[in-house]
Structure formats: C-alpha cells, structure tokens
C-alpha cells in the first residue's frame, strides 16, 4: 500500500504498575493499519487487545514506543474526534432516549440542533433502528441497545471505528445477525474498523486483517491478511478457505501459549 497508515504502532510498550508488581500489558507491538481495513484483534484475556485499542483512543498512555493515529498523536486524534468508540456494553445513558443518546456526542461537539437530529436519524437508519429514536434504552433488547451505541459512534462521522468486544455479551444468533449488518455498514461507509474479539469465527468472518495476540507479556504473535472476498454471506464460514484461515488463527494462538493455563 502506498498511502501512509491510518494507525501505526512502533515497538509500543505499556506496563501497568500494580500492587503485585508491574504488568506488561503490551510489549514491543509493531502494527500498521491502513485506511478502509477491518482489523480484528484476537487473543485470550490479558493479551492486551483491549489495552491496544484504549491506547489508540487515548484512554491509556503507553510507557514506551510510538503510536500515531491519522498521522498525529492519539491525544491530538482524540481532540480531532478522529474515532468513535464502542464499548463492551452499550453504555447508553438510561435517562436519555435512543435519539438523545445518539445526539449526545453531537451536543458536546457543538453541532446545530437541526443537524443533530438529521445526523441521529441517519445514524439510526444505518444500524436499522429507524423509528426507535423515541424509546428509552430499557425498552430495547440487548442487541438493539448495542446497535444504538454503534449509531452513537457513527453519528459524528469519524473515520475510525474502535470496537471493544461489542457483541461479546450477546447470544450467538443475535451476534451472527449483527456481524452481517456490521459488514454491510463497513462496506457502505468505508471506515477503518478495529475490532476486539475472542471469537475465532467472528474474527475470520469480519476481518481483512487478523492480529493474533498472546498474554504475559501482551504481544502480537501473528498478523494474517484475509484472502476472503469482500462480499461475505454467512455460509462462507463453512468454506475451506474460511476454515483454513481459522486454523491459522488457532495455530497462532497455540504458538503464543494461549491455550495453556486456561
């Protein structure tokens, strides 16, 4: 690829000082992510995948190495509102309607009222929640709530979408459905998506690039460029190609001792 990467990490280190001594959450991580890629981070808990996402989002500060987001520091990228973040839980504010939740970032960023409404409507349409704007979060199912939180991350049109196990708490049927929708959304918006998961099929199904990580210290053990076509029906998951990639992910996890001491 010729264009400079959107996200670039160079020998990134992050050590947490805890009461039980230092914890090496990230150790010598090198990674380039280019515009329009769908990158999954997979690995067991403690491998630093969420930490890496939080470093990109300027929610954690690395203790060594460099990282650039959109050509600048994560801090500057946050000020530029370069990314939308989707958490493990929907994290909707219960006292706000779905629409008001989606307009929350827009209010904070000072968008005009009319544009807030317009953007919220568009974002809710993108996640198939048109007509649910006046509902309160508790009136929606878990899957719908998580879709609303994706709409909220999309509302201000950031180029990067950071997703931290967004479907981890949902059942498999809902998850399949949301994965399919997410791919369609990604195809329509051409955003760069970083997606943390610990499901191998999910990672393989969604990604153009799979980053396999392992714990103690948190590091990258393999980076797999997916050969699957862009158009991915759900049953692609039974194709030999899909299973081949899944096998390689599993091998990467095994090489990183991910299956030991579980």
């Amino acid at each position, binding site marked *: 690829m010729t264009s400079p990467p959107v996200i670039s990490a160079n020998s990134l280190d992050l050590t947490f000082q805890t009461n039980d001594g230092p914890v090496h959450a990230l150790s010598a991580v090198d990674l380039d992510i280019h515009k329009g890629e769908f990158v999954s981070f997979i690995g067991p808990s403690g491998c630093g995948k969420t930490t890496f996402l939080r470093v990109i989002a300027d*929610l954690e500060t690395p203790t060594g190495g460099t990282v650039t987001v959109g050509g600048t520091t994560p801090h500057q990228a946050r000020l530029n*509102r370069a990314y939308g973040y989707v*958490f493990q839980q929907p*994290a909707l*504010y219960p006292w*706000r309607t779905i629409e008001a939740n989606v307009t929350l970032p827009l209010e*904070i*960023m000072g968008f005009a009222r009319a544009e807030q409404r317009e953007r919220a409507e568009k974002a809710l349409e993108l996640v198939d929640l048109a007509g649910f704007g006046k509902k309160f*979060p508790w009136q929606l199912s878990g899957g719908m709530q998580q879709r609303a939180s994706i709409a909220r991350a999309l509302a201000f049109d950031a180029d990067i979408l950071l997703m931290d196990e967004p479907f981890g708490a949902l059942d498999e049927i809902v998850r399949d459905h949301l994965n399919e929708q997410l791919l369609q959304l990604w195809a329509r918006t051409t955003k760069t998506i970083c997606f943390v998961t610990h499901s191998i099929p999910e990672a393989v199904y969604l990604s153009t690039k799979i980053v396999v990580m392992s714990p103690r210290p948190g590091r990258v053990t393999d980076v797999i460029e997916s050969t699957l076509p862009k158009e991915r029906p759900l049953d692609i998951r039974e194709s030999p190609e899909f299973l081949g990639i899944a096998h390689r992910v599993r091998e990467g996890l095994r090489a990183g001792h991910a299956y030991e001491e579980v």
Partner: protein
Amino acid sequence: MIARSILPVLTVLGIILAFWYVGTVGMNWRVEAERFERMGLEKTTTEMLAATMAMDRPILPAPHQVWAEIQSSVFERSPTSRRSLVFHAWVTLSSTLVGFLMGTLLGILLAVGIVHSKVLDKSLLPWIIASQTIPILAIAPMIIIVFSTLGVTGLIPKAFISIYLAFFPVAIGMVKGLRSPEAMHLDLMHTYNASESQTFWKLRLPSSLPYLFASMKIAVAISLVGAIVGELPTGATAGLGARLLSGSYYGQTTQIWSALFMAAFMSALLVYAIGWLGGFVNKRMGARDEARA
C-alpha cells in the same frame, strides 16, 4: 393494591392503640386512685377505668383525648389564632422549608466542590463530618443567642439550625451520587473530549438524582427536628417547639402529645412529598414505572 394493604395497616394501628390504652390506664391508675382515696370515695373498677382516661392533666393521655385536643385546636379555631395548632405548625413549617431548601442547596454546592477539587475533598470532608458530631441541642441555644445579639430573631435563626442539620445528608449523598457514573460512561465522555462542565451537566448530575432525592428525604425530616429544637431554648412564643415547651411547663400532656402528632404528621407529609417529586422526576427521565427512587 390499596384495599389489600389497608387491612395490615389497620391491624398495626389497632395494636398500637390497644397498647396505648393499656399504658394510659396503667400509668394514670395510681394518681387517680390516690386522689379518690383523699376524697374518701370508693370507686368500682369500671369507674376507675373511665377516670384514668378522662383526666385533666394525665401522665399519659388516652388517644381519644389527644384526638379531641387536635380536633379542637386544628378545626375549631381560626388558623391565625395563637391557640390554633395550625398557626404553630405553620410557624415551624415555614422555617423548616427555608432551612431545608437552603441546606439542600448548600449540600449540593459542597458536593460539587468536593467532587471536582482534590483540595476540597481532603480539606472539607473531615469538617463536614465533625460538624455533625456536635449535639444539636448544645449548639442550638448558641446559634439563637448569637443571632439575637445581632438583632435577628424569629425564622432566620431557626432556619439556620435546619440548614446545619440538612446540608449533611445532602452533601454526603451527592458526593456519592456525583461519583456514581460507571467508568465506561466517563470514558465515553473522555473520547468525546467533553469539558468538565459538560460531563457534570450531561452525566454526573443526572446520575446523582436518585441519591439526591434519597438524601433530601432524610434532610427534610431532620430540618423539622432542627426547627423544633430551635424553638425550645429561648422559650419562643410560637411554633410546635413552643407548644411542647409550654405544655411541659403547665403539665398539659395532651397539648404536648397533640403537638408531637402534628410534627410527625408534617414530617411524614414532607417525606412523602419529596418521594413523590423524586418519582415524578425519575419518570420524566424515562425510568421504568416500578423502579422508583
């Protein structure tokens, strides 16, 4: 719902009244027996029972005596008369409300300061807690006297005592409430690069409201206690505290009990009013019907 809860409530009320009557008879018996003996009168048990419940200055008045006193002092006198319980109740209520509102405001302001400033957190909280270890009975006369040497009497000094009591639960509750947002909700604000004041108005304050209403229920009840205590030390001439005091000077136990019931009734009413307001706000904020604060 109401029909189902009315029977247990009435049962409890009946048991309380029964105990009360037993207490009335038991406590007043000796006084009456001695009185009849001095007069050289022989009384049957039935007559004795009736007599213990109809004394002028009983040790413990019977419920119906208290009720009669409340009835006559509430309904049969003009509310502007000094002999009306409504008049005295209003005197106490007005300073209760002023003290409660100011105390709540003070509590909220202190909590906002404590949550946003490490210095205030470390420096103020010990003093706030220490302030409540001083018995209000000890400090109330001083407050009243200091104010009266400044020429301020009546509502203000009493309201000040209510403020002194009411700000505490609100400050403590609001510190907890303003710190109640989950890490994820705060992270979200951080990713939007929201300012402290945006985080306060859009996240901290709404999250703290259930805590605020719970604290306000406590605050309003102790504001009333504060106002009554404030009426005691100087022999105030108006207010429920004054009624209690003059009742005890002249042995008017019925008057004391009716003033106590009036205070309890007002307190319950105020707490319910806050509860209703909390429920209303909660509902406006989209809470489920059954999940009321």
